[in-house]
């Protein structure tokens, strides 16, 4: 297996970062279940997908999650945080 280039779209950036994804996009404030945006928002969905695909050709740092803001999404949500064991 030679490997397959991947890009992850995540709405749980802290959780995803633990797996050190090769390339990852966090659309800031999107809630779980809305990885690409809200239903019917095709222009926004397209913008998110294009931004994710563009990470393929950019000089990103493997393991880093890139955050991009999309004001047109509307109300923002706090992503889940990683629970640390005490």
């Amino acid at each position, binding site marked *: 297996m030679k490997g397959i280039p*991947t890009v992850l779209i995540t709405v749980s950036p802290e959780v995803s970062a633990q797996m050190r*994804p090769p390339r990852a996009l966090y659309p800031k404030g999107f809630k779980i279940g809305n990885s690409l945006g809200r239903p019917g928002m095709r222009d926004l969905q397209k913008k998110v997908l294009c931004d994710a695909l563009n990470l393929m050709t950019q000089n990103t740092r493997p393991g880093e999650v890139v955050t991009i803001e999309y004001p047109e999404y509307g109300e923002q949500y706090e992503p889940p945080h990683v629970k640390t064991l005490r």
Partner: protein
Amino acid sequence: MTISRKCVPFTPFDRELSKSTIAIVTAGGVHLKDQEAFNIADELGDLTYREIPPDVDSSQLMVTHHHYDHSDADEDINVVFPIDVLRDLESEGFIGGVAKKHIGYMGYTMQLKAMYEGTAHEIANEIDRGSRADAVVLTGG
């Protein structure tokens, strides 16, 4: 083949997007309505996956997953599985094509070792050998 947990398994992308075929792999529990649903009754999670064809009518897709609110995906599957968006990008020339095979699985499991060493490899092989994808977009719920 053992995957190291200490390094990032980075595969370079040395192509142009406009000449590349893209596949989608989602952990969002997406499958065709006429495919067997994921087994949400198993508290350990379901380790199986479903193949989704490139020409699928997105209204024939559904979500079986009980660890996130998928009501928005029920309304528009593209919020977790952007197959219509991908086809739009192909028709606009942004990407070269839609891969021959896409994958849905349920991204919740208490069987992490089996998922990591079994299902993940099987999905990678499906994509590597069966989809002709040059790159993969991964989504969660």
